[in-house]
């Protein structure tokens, strides 16, 4: 039984144990580094969001009346590059993974704290490159950098953008490496693999992808830069090369990268659903191994991005079948979350609303992925808005819903403050409505044949495009509200007790916010992660 005691004086915690700007910029504390990352990804999310807004503004009318096509190309390219490489990939692992992995496994820090800080600086330097590209006039290749356009014809700053992603990639690699070693070597006494929270399993699988996949995009961009900058050619037929090889190498990373974005989110959702159902997750081992299975299968499906690129028909068939197989571990997760709620004491708190939204939107995103994995359908749907809607359901409806769910779930732990439940529920509903209004019409547009990456379109598509743009403005408001009440809570919110949700994992056993060393005494674990008894369930908020 955990009771909230009213604080009599300001307790020691990782915010007030050291003070001053230098104590933040030179910190080795994983919790502070997580907050540095939170500032970074929020900044880049805002920049990427501005480009999304510009895209939707342009598409409100069929004519190209806001910008010309060159500028529009730069809009969607900058939106894609910033959102994928500087927001989605680092978002949950670098913020929540950093903050929570040591806490959840009862460690004092990650295995390599200095490397952890270095990762943040590398990430920011990579981001600086991208921002520089932006200020100089942008890049117009699409976030996919397909050759030979990117190496021989593009007028944008391809080399600088490629360097930025190359550098940011090393941040991702080092973070993944740090987590793998931390999870292997830093667990508290008694914390066996099958006592780990499922969030840890999800991050372990994510780290595997980061470590195995990211070096391949790094070398691909290295070759791209050599070809564009030094004319040492690999992909351009003018140099004897083959552009399809670039696509193979690009997607060998960039498809698994989708799972870097979604797996941590699944980990977050698993924690939230378990806590707010006050029930052990249904099928712990299935959820744990489905994360690993998604990571493994994720590496052998990249060819489904090349169905119309001149890849052989037999390769296409194999990649199609393999792509269907990824649906199995994904579906296992959805079934298990649903079964966890069944006969649980479900509480509809804000994090739970995001988790429920995640399940619905991820399911739509996942099932429409099956349309695209089938060869015949894909020929019709390739490069249409159907694809755009599909991956936004997974990345925005999945990854960002998970990110927001995580923010609301762990906010009391990270900052030691409770936010306003009324406002947070309203904004969760607004985001859900705004999201669907933005992206559902795009399924219809794509199915009717509207191609992506064009800023003019036939007038008959206008109604659905206006709906989508309207939805985008609702979504933008939905994102701004949490920004306000969360910042408000930092100053005026009531103090959070150590365990406001009645959760069972280790991070809730220490105070909120935790002390720099995380725990006063190293915890010794004697039970599974999710052991609920009726006495332990506490209803607060």
């Amino acid at each position, binding site marked *: 039984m955990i009771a909230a005691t009213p604080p009599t004086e300001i307790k020691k915690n990782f915010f007030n144990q050291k003070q001053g700007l230098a104590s933040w910029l030179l910190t080795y504390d994983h919790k502070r580094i997580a907050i540095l990352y939170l500032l970074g990804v929020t900044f880049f999310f805002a920049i990427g969001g501005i480009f999304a807004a510009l895209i939707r503004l342009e598409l409100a009318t069929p004519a190209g009346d806001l910008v010309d096509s060159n500028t529009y190309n730069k809009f969607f390219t900058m939106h894609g590059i910033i959102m994928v490489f500087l927001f989605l990939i680092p978002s949950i692992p670098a913020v929540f993974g950093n903050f929570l992995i040591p806490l959840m496994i009862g460690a004092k820090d990650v295995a390599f704290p200095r490397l952890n800080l270095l990762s943040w600086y590398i990430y920011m330097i990579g981001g600086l490159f991208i921002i520089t590209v932006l200020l100089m006039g942008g890049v117009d290749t699409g976030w996919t950098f397909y050759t030979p356009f990117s190496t021989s014809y593009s007028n944008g700053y391809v080399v600088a953008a490629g360097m930025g992603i190359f550098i940011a990639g090393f941040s991702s690699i080092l973070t993944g490496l740090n987590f793998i070693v*931390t999870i292997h070597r830093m667990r508290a006494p008694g914390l066996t693999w099958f006592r780990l929270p499922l969030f840890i399993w999800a991050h372990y699988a994510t780290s595997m992808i980061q470590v*195995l996949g990211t070096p*391949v995009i790094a*070398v691909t961009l290295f*070759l791209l830069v050599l070809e564009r900058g030094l004319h040492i050619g690999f992909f351009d037929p003018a140099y*004897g090369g083959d552009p399809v090889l670039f696509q193979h*190498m690009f997607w060998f990373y960039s498809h698994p990268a989708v799972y870097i974005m979604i797996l941590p989110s699944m980990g977050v959702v698993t924690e939230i659903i378990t806590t707010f159902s006050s029930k052990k997750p249904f099928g712990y081992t299935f959820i744990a191994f489905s994360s690993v299975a998604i990571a493994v299968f994720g590496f052998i499906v990249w060819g489904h991005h090349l169905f119309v690129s001149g890849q052989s028909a037999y390769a296409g068939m194999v990649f199609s079948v393999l792509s269907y197989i990824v649906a199995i571990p994904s579906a296992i997760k959805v079934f298990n979350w649903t079964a966890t709620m069944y006969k649980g004491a479900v509480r509809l708190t804000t994090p739970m609303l995001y988790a429920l939204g995640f399940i619905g939107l991820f399911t739509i995103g996942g099932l429409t992925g099956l349309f695209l994995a089938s060869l015949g359908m894909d020929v019709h749907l390739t490069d249409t808005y159907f694809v755009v809607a599909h991956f936004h359901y997974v990345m925005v409806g999945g990854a960002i819903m998970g990110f927001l769910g995580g923010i609301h779930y762990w906010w009391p732990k990270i900052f030691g403050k409770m936010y306003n439940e009324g406002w947070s529920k309203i904004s969760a509903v607004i985001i859900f409505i705004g999201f669907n209004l933005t992206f559902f019409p795009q399924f219809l547009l794509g199915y009717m044949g509207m191609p992506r990456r064009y800023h003019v379109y036939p007038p008959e598509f206008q109604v659905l495009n206006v709906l989508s743009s309207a939805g985008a403005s609702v979504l933008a408001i939905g994102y701004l509200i949490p920004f306000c009440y969360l910042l408000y809570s930092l100053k005026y919110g009531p103090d959070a007790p150590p365990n406001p949700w009645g959760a069972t994992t280790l991070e809730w056993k220490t105070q909120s916010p935790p002390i720099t060393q995380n725990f006063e*005494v190293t915890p010794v674990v004697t039970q599974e*992660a999710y052991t609920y008894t009726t006495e332990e369930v506490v209803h607060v908020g």
Partner: protein
Amino acid sequence: MDSETVVAPSAAGAPPQHGHVEHHFEDASQQKDAATVGMWVFLVTEVMFFGGLFLAYFAYRQAYPVAFASASNNTNLLIGAANTTVLICSSLTMALAVHFAAIGKKNLIVLFLILTLLLGGTFLSVKAYEYHDKWVKHEVPGYNFDCRTDTGAPCADAAHTPLFFSLYFGMTGLHAMHMIVGVGILLFLITQARKGRYTPAWHTPVELFGLYWHFVDIVWIFLFPLLYLIDRSAMPK
């Protein structure tokens, strides 16, 4: 979950010192384990990093065997073989440095690290000579590229020979960058070793750098046959 509690043995918050257990580890063996696992995971990322280039090599070698066989005759077999020997010797000296670190012979650690440095430097100098030679012979793709056989005739399948040289420079260039990083770390290790920082109880940096150095050597062991040897004699001179 019920959790009993025990008092953590190490003094939390103590400043990290060289050769000592840092504050977030329970003991020295946990610290060493973590560093070793970390190094191996890093080497896995390196395998994937070079892997992309090997993939490109195999794809194009398969597609244009004649161009590759012809162009590979323009690499200098004698120099390549000699340089391979130099690099293998440097692995031996590195292994000896690790060995002497483990038994605490300070002067021998320094000696063998310096020998490793010299051999690595030799390799890089020879590589620089080879690059210069290629530049003079117009064998750098994109810069007045003109591949000729020994008799002065154009290389076979001239449309695709630039690919071979692109891969040659891409692969050996990336390898050389790893060597340069290695040389930099060696300089650091030598200064530390001279101060007697490495003891039988703690010499993790020497040991882990050894892993890195051997890895870079092994990459070359693959590069040498791929670029210098395979199908070299398949083409009429």
